[in-house]
Protein backbone atom coordinates (compact mmCIF):
# COMPACT_ATOMS: atom_id res chain seq x y z
CA UNK A 1 0.00 0.00 0.00
CA UNK A 2 1.38 3.43 -0.92
CA UNK A 3 1.26 5.77 2.05
CA UNK A 4 0.03 9.28 1.41
CA UNK A 5 2.03 12.44 2.10
CA UNK A 6 1.05 15.04 4.68
CA UNK A 7 -0.57 17.21 2.01
CA UNK A 8 -2.81 14.40 0.80
CA UNK A 9 -4.63 13.52 4.01
CA UNK A 10 -7.58 15.16 5.74
CA UNK A 11 -6.57 17.36 8.68
CA UNK A 12 -6.98 16.24 12.26
CA UNK A 13 -7.03 12.51 11.59
CA UNK A 14 -10.67 12.63 10.47
CA UNK A 15 -12.15 9.59 8.80
CA UNK A 16 -15.00 10.36 6.40
CA UNK A 17 -15.18 6.85 4.99
CA UNK A 18 -17.64 5.46 7.53
CA UNK A 19 -17.07 1.89 8.64
CA UNK A 20 -13.62 1.57 7.11
CA UNK A 21 -12.41 -0.06 10.32
CA UNK A 22 -13.53 -3.23 8.55
CA UNK A 23 -10.40 -2.93 6.42
CA UNK A 24 -8.27 -3.36 9.50
CA UNK A 25 -7.57 -7.03 10.13
CA UNK A 26 -7.69 -7.26 13.90
CA UNK A 27 -7.79 -11.02 13.45
CA UNK A 28 -4.00 -10.98 13.20
CA UNK A 29 -3.80 -10.06 16.89
CA UNK A 30 -5.43 -13.32 17.98
CA UNK A 31 -3.53 -15.80 20.16
CA UNK A 32 -6.61 -17.88 21.01
CA UNK A 33 -9.44 -18.75 18.69
CA UNK A 34 -13.07 -19.19 19.81
CA UNK A 35 -14.55 -22.47 18.63
CA UNK A 36 -18.30 -22.96 18.96
CA UNK A 37 -19.72 -26.34 19.80
CA UNK A 38 -22.86 -26.16 17.71
CA UNK A 39 -24.39 -29.10 19.59
CA UNK A 40 -24.49 -27.06 22.77
CA UNK A 41 -25.41 -23.67 21.24
CA UNK A 42 -29.03 -22.54 21.72
CA UNK A 43 -28.61 -19.41 19.55
CA UNK A 44 -29.44 -17.17 22.47
CA UNK A 45 -27.27 -14.42 20.89
CA UNK A 46 -25.54 -13.45 24.12
CA UNK A 47 -22.13 -13.84 22.47
CA UNK A 48 -23.30 -11.69 19.55
CA UNK A 49 -24.34 -8.93 21.96
CA UNK A 50 -21.09 -9.03 23.90
CA UNK A 51 -18.53 -9.40 21.11
CA UNK A 52 -16.74 -6.01 20.95
CA UNK A 53 -15.76 -6.58 17.32
CA UNK A 54 -19.03 -7.74 15.81
CA UNK A 55 -17.29 -10.99 14.92
CA UNK A 56 -20.05 -13.44 15.70
CA UNK A 57 -21.54 -14.40 12.34
CA UNK A 58 -25.30 -14.76 12.28
CA UNK A 59 -27.68 -15.81 9.56
CA UNK A 60 -31.45 -16.30 9.84
CA UNK A 61 -31.34 -15.70 13.61
CA UNK A 62 -28.80 -18.51 14.03
CA UNK A 63 -25.17 -18.23 15.05
CA UNK A 64 -23.17 -19.69 12.18
CA UNK A 65 -19.55 -19.09 13.16
CA UNK A 66 -16.81 -16.55 13.81
CA UNK A 67 -15.47 -13.85 11.49
CA UNK A 68 -11.80 -14.78 11.85
CA UNK A 69 -10.61 -11.76 9.87
CA UNK A 70 -11.70 -9.51 12.74
CA UNK A 71 -12.05 -11.71 15.84
CA UNK A 72 -9.09 -10.68 18.00
CA UNK A 73 -9.48 -13.57 20.39
CA UNK A 74 -10.44 -11.64 23.51
CA UNK A 75 -12.51 -14.54 24.87
CA UNK A 76 -15.45 -12.44 26.00
CA UNK A 77 -17.89 -14.61 24.02
CA UNK A 78 -16.58 -17.76 25.70
CA UNK A 79 -16.81 -16.12 29.11
CA UNK A 80 -20.37 -14.90 28.59
CA UNK A 81 -21.89 -17.93 26.88
CA UNK A 82 -24.41 -19.37 29.35
CA UNK A 83 -24.15 -22.80 27.70
CA UNK A 84 -20.34 -22.92 27.81
CA UNK A 85 -20.55 -23.67 24.10
CA UNK A 86 -17.44 -21.68 23.17
CA UNK A 87 -13.93 -22.79 23.95
CA UNK A 88 -10.80 -20.74 23.39
CA UNK A 89 -8.22 -22.84 21.59
CA UNK A 90 -4.63 -21.79 21.10
CA UNK A 91 -4.31 -20.33 17.62
CA UNK A 92 -1.51 -22.68 16.48
CA UNK A 93 -3.47 -25.70 17.67
CA UNK A 94 -6.69 -24.42 16.09
CA UNK A 95 -4.88 -23.88 12.78
CA UNK A 96 -3.58 -27.44 12.81
CA UNK A 97 -7.04 -28.74 13.60
CA UNK A 98 -8.50 -26.77 10.71
CA UNK A 99 -6.11 -28.34 8.22
Amino acid at each position, binding site marked *: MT*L*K*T*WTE*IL*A*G*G*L*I*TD*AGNSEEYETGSWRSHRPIIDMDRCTHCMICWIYCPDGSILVSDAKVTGIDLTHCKGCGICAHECPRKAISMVEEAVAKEGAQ
Partner: protein
Amino acid sequence: MVSQKVKGKPVALDGDRAVAEAIRQMNPDVVAAYPITPQTEIVMRFSEFVANGEVVTEFIPVESEHAAMSACIGASAAGGRAQTATAGAGLAFMWEVLWVASGTRLPIVMHVVNRSLSAPLNIHCDHSDSMGARDAGWIQLYDETVQEAYDNAIQALRIAEHPDIMLPTLHALDGFILGHGVERLELLPDDAVRSFIGIYEPQHPLLDVDHPVTYGPMVLTDYFFEYKRQQAAAMERALEIIPQIGEEYGTFTGRYYGLMEGYRLEDAEFATIALGSTAGTIKTVVDELRDQGVKAGLLKLRCFRPFPATILAEALGDKKAIAVLDRSLSFGAQGGPLFLEVITALFTHGLSPKVLNYAYGLGGRDIVPARIHQVYKDLIEIDREGLTESSIRYLGLRE
Protein backbone atom coordinates in the same frame (compact mmCIF):
# COMPACT_ATOMS: atom_id res chain seq x y z
CA MET B 1 -18.15 41.49 6.71
CA VAL B 2 -18.50 45.03 7.97
CA SER B 3 -16.87 47.59 5.73
CA GLN B 4 -18.19 50.83 7.23
CA LYS B 5 -16.85 52.34 10.43
CA VAL B 6 -19.18 51.61 13.30
CA LYS B 7 -19.58 53.69 16.41
CA GLY B 8 -18.46 51.94 19.56
CA LYS B 9 -20.02 52.53 22.93
CA PRO B 10 -17.55 53.89 25.51
CA VAL B 11 -17.78 52.00 28.79
CA ALA B 12 -15.65 51.41 31.88
CA LEU B 13 -15.14 47.70 32.49
CA ASP B 14 -12.52 45.41 33.91
CA GLY B 15 -10.91 42.92 31.55
CA ASP B 16 -12.94 39.96 32.74
CA ARG B 17 -16.22 41.75 32.17
CA ALA B 18 -15.10 43.07 28.81
CA VAL B 19 -14.30 39.50 27.74
CA ALA B 20 -17.68 38.33 29.05
CA GLU B 21 -19.32 40.99 26.88
CA ALA B 22 -17.33 39.77 23.88
CA ILE B 23 -18.48 36.19 24.50
CA ARG B 24 -22.08 37.39 24.84
CA GLN B 25 -21.81 39.15 21.50
CA MET B 26 -20.23 36.11 19.84
CA ASN B 27 -23.05 34.01 21.30
CA PRO B 28 -21.26 30.63 21.08
CA ASP B 29 -23.19 27.37 20.99
CA VAL B 30 -21.38 26.00 24.02
CA VAL B 31 -19.39 27.51 26.87
CA ALA B 32 -17.95 24.97 29.30
CA ALA B 33 -15.93 26.39 32.15
CA TYR B 34 -14.84 25.98 35.71
CA PRO B 35 -14.25 28.94 38.01
CA ILE B 36 -10.72 29.89 39.01
CA THR B 37 -9.33 33.21 40.21
CA PRO B 38 -8.73 35.57 38.45
CA GLN B 39 -10.87 34.26 35.61
CA THR B 40 -14.03 33.53 37.62
CA GLU B 41 -15.61 36.84 36.81
CA ILE B 42 -15.74 36.01 33.10
CA VAL B 43 -17.90 32.92 33.51
CA MET B 44 -19.77 34.39 36.46
CA ARG B 45 -20.84 37.35 34.35
CA PHE B 46 -21.44 35.17 31.32
CA SER B 47 -23.67 32.79 33.28
CA GLU B 48 -25.87 35.80 34.07
CA PHE B 49 -26.26 36.40 30.34
CA VAL B 50 -27.26 32.75 29.99
CA ALA B 51 -29.76 33.00 32.87
CA ASN B 52 -31.24 36.18 31.39
CA GLY B 53 -31.70 34.54 28.02
CA GLU B 54 -29.40 37.04 26.34
CA VAL B 55 -27.53 34.26 24.54
CA VAL B 56 -28.49 30.90 23.07
CA THR B 57 -25.39 29.30 24.56
CA GLU B 58 -25.52 25.94 26.29
CA PHE B 59 -23.55 26.70 29.43
CA ILE B 60 -21.93 23.64 31.00
CA PRO B 61 -20.67 24.18 34.56
CA VAL B 62 -18.23 21.28 34.48
CA GLU B 63 -16.41 19.65 37.39
CA SER B 64 -12.89 20.59 36.29
CA GLU B 65 -10.89 22.34 33.62
CA HIS B 66 -9.94 19.01 32.08
CA ALA B 67 -13.67 18.43 31.66
CA ALA B 68 -14.19 22.00 30.41
CA MET B 69 -11.78 21.53 27.54
CA SER B 70 -13.10 18.03 26.88
CA ALA B 71 -16.66 19.38 26.63
CA CYS B 72 -15.45 22.10 24.25
CA ILE B 73 -13.76 19.43 22.12
CA GLY B 74 -16.99 17.44 21.93
CA ALA B 75 -19.05 20.53 21.14
CA SER B 76 -16.63 21.72 18.50
CA ALA B 77 -16.41 18.31 16.85
CA ALA B 78 -20.21 18.21 16.84
CA GLY B 79 -20.09 21.35 14.72
CA GLY B 80 -20.72 24.09 17.27
CA ARG B 81 -18.80 27.13 18.36
CA ALA B 82 -17.21 26.35 21.71
CA GLN B 83 -15.41 28.60 24.14
CA THR B 84 -13.95 28.45 27.61
CA ALA B 85 -11.97 30.61 30.01
CA THR B 86 -9.38 29.68 32.59
CA ALA B 87 -6.26 30.72 34.47
CA GLY B 88 -3.10 29.34 36.05
CA ALA B 89 -3.58 25.87 37.49
CA GLY B 90 -6.80 25.53 35.49
CA LEU B 91 -4.88 25.82 32.25
CA ALA B 92 -2.27 23.41 33.57
CA PHE B 93 -5.03 20.91 34.35
CA MET B 94 -6.20 21.16 30.72
CA TRP B 95 -2.76 20.35 29.38
CA GLU B 96 -3.49 16.87 28.08
CA VAL B 97 -6.65 17.90 26.24
CA LEU B 98 -5.15 21.11 24.82
CA TRP B 99 -3.23 18.81 22.52
CA VAL B 100 -6.37 16.89 21.62
CA ALA B 101 -8.10 20.15 20.62
CA SER B 102 -5.23 21.27 18.39
CA GLY B 103 -4.41 17.81 17.02
CA THR B 104 -8.06 17.35 16.05
CA ARG B 105 -7.98 20.83 14.46
CA LEU B 106 -10.93 22.20 16.41
CA PRO B 107 -11.38 26.00 16.34
CA ILE B 108 -12.06 26.42 20.05
CA VAL B 109 -11.57 29.86 21.59
CA MET B 110 -10.11 30.22 25.07
CA HIS B 111 -9.76 33.30 27.23
CA VAL B 112 -6.80 32.91 29.59
CA VAL B 113 -6.42 35.28 32.51
CA ASN B 114 -2.75 34.83 33.33
CA ARG B 115 -1.93 33.53 36.78
CA SER B 116 1.22 32.03 38.25
CA LEU B 117 1.53 28.29 38.85
CA SER B 118 1.80 26.87 42.37
CA ALA B 119 3.83 26.26 44.51
CA PRO B 120 4.03 28.41 46.55
CA LEU B 121 0.37 29.15 46.06
CA ASN B 122 -0.16 32.51 44.37
CA ILE B 123 -3.15 33.87 42.52
CA HIS B 124 -1.45 36.82 40.82
CA CYS B 125 -0.19 37.39 37.33
CA ASP B 126 2.69 35.89 35.51
CA HIS B 127 2.88 34.04 32.23
CA SER B 128 3.92 30.60 33.52
CA ASP B 129 0.50 29.21 32.63
CA SER B 130 0.25 30.23 28.98
CA MET B 131 3.99 29.77 28.40
CA GLY B 132 3.62 26.25 29.78
CA ALA B 133 1.12 25.64 26.97
CA ARG B 134 3.26 27.19 24.25
CA ASP B 135 3.98 23.89 22.49
CA ALA B 136 0.40 22.63 22.65
CA GLY B 137 -0.49 23.74 19.12
CA TRP B 138 -2.69 26.67 20.12
CA ILE B 139 -2.41 30.12 18.61
CA GLN B 140 -1.49 32.56 21.39
CA LEU B 141 -2.27 36.28 21.44
CA TYR B 142 -1.40 38.63 24.31
CA ASP B 143 -3.45 41.68 25.33
CA GLU B 144 -1.96 44.97 26.46
CA THR B 145 -5.17 46.70 27.53
CA VAL B 146 -8.77 45.86 28.36
CA GLN B 147 -9.70 47.14 24.91
CA GLU B 148 -7.26 44.67 23.40
CA ALA B 149 -8.63 41.86 25.57
CA TYR B 150 -12.05 42.58 24.09
CA ASP B 151 -10.75 42.99 20.52
CA ASN B 152 -8.52 39.90 20.65
CA ALA B 153 -11.33 37.80 22.12
CA ILE B 154 -13.40 38.55 19.02
CA GLN B 155 -10.58 38.17 16.52
CA ALA B 156 -9.51 34.89 18.13
CA LEU B 157 -12.69 33.30 16.82
CA ARG B 158 -12.08 34.43 13.25
CA ILE B 159 -8.46 33.27 13.42
CA ALA B 160 -9.37 29.86 14.83
CA GLU B 161 -12.13 29.25 12.30
CA HIS B 162 -10.23 30.42 9.23
CA PRO B 163 -10.34 27.45 6.83
CA ASP B 164 -6.59 27.70 6.22
CA ILE B 165 -5.87 27.65 9.95
CA MET B 166 -8.43 25.60 11.92
CA LEU B 167 -6.46 25.72 15.15
CA PRO B 168 -7.70 26.48 18.65
CA THR B 169 -6.80 29.99 19.67
CA LEU B 170 -6.25 31.59 23.03
CA HIS B 171 -5.70 35.16 24.04
CA ALA B 172 -4.15 36.00 27.37
CA LEU B 173 -4.82 38.96 29.60
CA ASP B 174 -2.75 39.67 32.67
CA GLY B 175 -4.53 38.48 35.81
CA PHE B 176 -5.81 41.30 38.05
CA ILE B 177 -3.80 43.95 36.14
CA LEU B 178 -6.21 43.65 33.23
CA GLY B 179 -8.61 41.01 34.52
CA HIS B 180 -9.76 43.11 37.47
CA GLY B 181 -8.46 46.51 36.39
CA VAL B 182 -11.18 48.87 35.16
CA GLU B 183 -10.34 50.74 31.98
CA ARG B 184 -12.22 52.71 29.38
CA LEU B 185 -12.95 50.80 26.24
CA GLU B 186 -15.36 50.84 23.37
CA LEU B 187 -17.81 48.01 22.92
CA LEU B 188 -18.96 47.33 19.40
CA PRO B 189 -22.66 47.06 18.59
CA ASP B 190 -23.81 43.43 18.83
CA ASP B 191 -24.68 43.24 15.15
CA ALA B 192 -21.21 44.47 14.12
CA VAL B 193 -19.60 41.65 16.09
CA ARG B 194 -22.06 39.13 14.68
CA SER B 195 -21.47 40.21 11.14
CA PHE B 196 -17.68 40.19 11.67
CA ILE B 197 -17.71 36.62 12.97
CA GLY B 198 -20.38 35.47 10.49
CA ILE B 199 -22.09 32.11 10.60
CA TYR B 200 -19.84 29.17 11.34
CA GLU B 201 -20.10 26.45 8.76
CA PRO B 202 -18.17 23.46 10.05
CA GLN B 203 -16.75 21.24 7.33
CA HIS B 204 -17.25 17.89 9.02
CA PRO B 205 -19.72 18.22 11.88
CA LEU B 206 -20.11 15.03 13.85
CA LEU B 207 -23.85 15.62 14.10
CA ASP B 208 -24.33 15.55 10.34
CA VAL B 209 -25.57 11.97 10.30
CA ASP B 210 -25.92 11.97 6.53
CA HIS B 211 -22.16 12.40 6.23
CA PRO B 212 -20.78 10.25 9.02
CA VAL B 213 -17.27 11.07 10.17
CA THR B 214 -14.94 9.66 12.81
CA TYR B 215 -13.07 12.08 15.09
CA GLY B 216 -10.08 11.08 17.13
CA PRO B 217 -9.09 7.67 15.76
CA MET B 218 -5.83 6.08 16.75
CA VAL B 219 -3.03 6.90 14.33
CA LEU B 220 0.17 4.93 14.60
CA THR B 221 3.69 5.14 13.21
CA ASP B 222 2.49 5.27 9.61
CA TYR B 223 0.64 8.62 9.72
CA PHE B 224 1.07 10.41 13.08
CA PHE B 225 4.07 12.42 11.87
CA GLU B 226 2.15 13.60 8.79
CA TYR B 227 -0.65 15.04 10.96
CA LYS B 228 1.88 16.94 13.06
CA ARG B 229 3.43 18.40 9.91
CA GLN B 230 -0.02 19.65 8.93
CA GLN B 231 -0.34 21.44 12.26
CA ALA B 232 3.03 23.10 11.75
CA ALA B 233 1.90 24.24 8.29
CA ALA B 234 -1.32 25.69 9.68
CA MET B 235 0.74 27.73 12.15
CA GLU B 236 2.90 29.01 9.29
CA ARG B 237 -0.21 30.07 7.37
CA ALA B 238 -1.57 31.81 10.47
CA LEU B 239 1.36 34.24 10.27
CA GLU B 240 -0.14 35.55 7.02
CA ILE B 241 -3.77 35.41 8.04
CA ILE B 242 -3.72 36.91 11.55
CA PRO B 243 -2.68 40.37 10.25
CA GLN B 244 -5.31 40.16 7.48
CA ILE B 245 -8.02 39.57 10.08
CA GLY B 246 -6.52 42.38 12.21
CA GLU B 247 -6.68 44.67 9.19
CA GLU B 248 -10.29 43.77 8.48
CA TYR B 249 -11.14 44.40 12.13
CA GLY B 250 -9.53 47.80 11.83
CA THR B 251 -11.63 48.83 8.85
CA PHE B 252 -14.78 49.06 10.95
CA THR B 253 -13.36 49.68 14.43
CA GLY B 254 -10.44 51.95 13.62
CA ARG B 255 -8.26 49.65 15.70
CA TYR B 256 -5.85 47.76 13.44
CA TYR B 257 -3.95 44.72 14.63
CA GLY B 258 -0.83 43.00 13.37
CA LEU B 259 1.47 40.35 14.78
CA MET B 260 3.41 42.95 16.75
CA GLU B 261 3.33 46.66 17.42
CA GLY B 262 6.35 48.90 17.30
CA TYR B 263 6.25 51.88 19.63
CA ARG B 264 8.74 54.58 18.62
CA LEU B 265 10.74 51.62 17.42
CA GLU B 266 11.80 52.53 13.92
CA ASP B 267 14.57 54.99 14.79
CA ALA B 268 15.18 53.56 18.26
CA GLU B 269 18.67 52.54 19.31
CA PHE B 270 17.60 50.73 22.46
CA ALA B 271 14.60 48.43 22.35
CA THR B 272 12.68 46.32 24.80
CA ILE B 273 10.39 43.44 23.88
CA ALA B 274 7.45 42.49 26.05
CA LEU B 275 4.08 40.79 26.08
CA GLY B 276 0.87 41.93 27.72
CA SER B 277 0.10 44.87 29.97
CA THR B 278 3.77 45.61 30.72
CA ALA B 279 3.96 47.12 27.24
CA GLY B 280 1.80 49.98 28.49
CA THR B 281 4.22 50.77 31.30
CA ILE B 282 7.11 50.62 28.86
CA LYS B 283 5.43 53.09 26.49
CA THR B 284 5.31 55.66 29.31
CA VAL B 285 9.00 55.14 30.02
CA VAL B 286 9.88 55.31 26.32
CA ASP B 287 8.16 58.72 26.12
CA GLU B 288 10.06 59.94 29.18
CA LEU B 289 13.37 58.76 27.76
CA ARG B 290 12.66 60.30 24.37
CA ASP B 291 12.09 63.63 26.16
CA GLN B 292 15.55 63.19 27.64
CA GLY B 293 17.01 62.51 24.20
CA VAL B 294 17.43 58.76 24.61
CA LYS B 295 16.38 56.86 21.50
CA ALA B 296 14.24 54.27 23.27
CA GLY B 297 11.65 52.07 21.64
CA LEU B 298 9.38 49.13 22.31
CA LEU B 299 8.44 46.04 20.39
CA LYS B 300 5.17 44.77 21.78
CA LEU B 301 4.54 41.24 20.65
CA ARG B 302 0.86 40.50 20.16
CA CYS B 303 1.24 37.05 18.66
CA PHE B 304 3.55 34.60 20.43
CA ARG B 305 2.32 31.47 18.62
CA PRO B 306 3.01 31.39 15.76
CA PHE B 307 6.18 33.35 16.46
CA PRO B 308 6.68 36.13 13.87
CA ALA B 309 10.46 35.69 13.65
CA THR B 310 11.07 37.46 10.35
CA ILE B 311 9.23 40.70 11.06
CA LEU B 312 10.72 40.75 14.53
CA ALA B 313 14.24 40.37 13.18
CA GLU B 314 13.59 43.05 10.57
CA ALA B 315 12.35 45.44 13.24
CA LEU B 316 15.30 44.82 15.54
CA GLY B 317 18.18 44.36 13.11
CA ASP B 318 19.64 47.85 13.51
CA LYS B 319 19.32 48.22 17.30
CA LYS B 320 22.36 48.83 19.48
CA ALA B 321 21.04 46.79 22.39
CA ILE B 322 17.84 44.91 23.12
CA ALA B 323 16.14 43.76 26.33
CA VAL B 324 13.67 40.89 26.35
CA LEU B 325 11.25 40.88 29.27
CA ASP B 326 9.99 37.48 30.32
CA ARG B 327 7.16 37.15 32.80
CA SER B 328 7.97 33.49 33.41
CA LEU B 329 10.97 31.28 34.04
CA SER B 330 11.99 28.21 32.14
CA PHE B 331 14.03 26.54 34.83
CA GLY B 332 17.37 25.32 33.61
CA ALA B 333 16.95 26.91 30.19
CA GLN B 334 19.24 29.61 28.82
CA GLY B 335 16.72 32.34 29.50
CA GLY B 336 12.96 32.86 29.42
CA PRO B 337 10.72 31.51 26.65
CA LEU B 338 10.41 34.87 24.89
CA PHE B 339 14.18 35.45 25.08
CA LEU B 340 14.94 32.09 23.51
CA GLU B 341 12.56 32.83 20.64
CA VAL B 342 14.04 36.28 20.06
CA ILE B 343 17.62 35.02 20.13
CA THR B 344 16.74 32.27 17.66
CA ALA B 345 14.97 34.74 15.38
CA LEU B 346 17.97 37.09 15.40
CA PHE B 347 20.51 34.31 14.88
CA THR B 348 18.61 32.68 12.01
CA HIS B 349 18.42 36.08 10.32
CA GLY B 350 22.16 36.58 10.65
CA LEU B 351 21.91 39.22 13.37
CA SER B 352 23.82 39.31 16.63
CA PRO B 353 23.05 42.49 18.55
CA LYS B 354 23.60 42.68 22.30
CA VAL B 355 20.57 41.19 24.02
CA LEU B 356 19.68 41.07 27.71
CA ASN B 357 17.00 38.92 29.27
CA TYR B 358 15.01 40.01 32.30
CA ALA B 359 12.74 37.75 34.29
CA TYR B 360 10.23 39.99 36.02
CA GLY B 361 6.81 40.23 37.61
CA LEU B 362 6.60 36.66 38.86
CA GLY B 363 3.63 35.98 41.11
CA GLY B 364 2.27 39.43 40.36
CA ARG B 365 5.33 41.43 41.49
CA ASP B 366 4.62 44.95 40.28
CA ILE B 367 6.56 46.24 37.32
CA VAL B 368 6.87 49.98 37.87
CA PRO B 369 8.38 52.64 35.53
CA ALA B 370 11.55 52.90 37.65
CA ARG B 371 12.33 49.26 36.87
CA ILE B 372 11.91 49.84 33.14
CA HIS B 373 14.20 52.87 33.39
CA GLN B 374 16.78 50.52 34.93
CA VAL B 375 16.46 48.23 31.91
CA TYR B 376 17.20 51.05 29.44
CA LYS B 377 20.08 52.22 31.65
CA ASP B 378 21.53 48.72 31.47
CA LEU B 379 21.13 48.70 27.68
CA ILE B 380 22.98 51.99 27.32
CA GLU B 381 25.70 50.66 29.61
CA ILE B 382 26.26 47.40 27.74
CA ASP B 383 26.31 49.31 24.48
CA ARG B 384 29.08 51.51 25.83
CA GLU B 385 31.05 49.05 27.89
CA GLY B 386 30.12 45.65 26.55
CA LEU B 387 28.64 42.85 28.56
CA THR B 388 30.43 42.62 31.90
CA GLU B 389 27.94 40.49 33.79
CA SER B 390 25.37 37.85 32.94
CA SER B 391 22.88 38.60 30.20
CA ILE B 392 20.18 36.82 32.22
CA ARG B 393 18.85 39.14 34.90
CA TYR B 394 16.08 39.37 37.47
CA LEU B 395 14.17 42.62 37.55
CA GLY B 396 12.53 43.75 40.77
CA LEU B 397 14.01 40.93 42.84
CA ARG B 398 15.54 41.68 46.26
CA GLU B 399 19.22 40.77 45.94
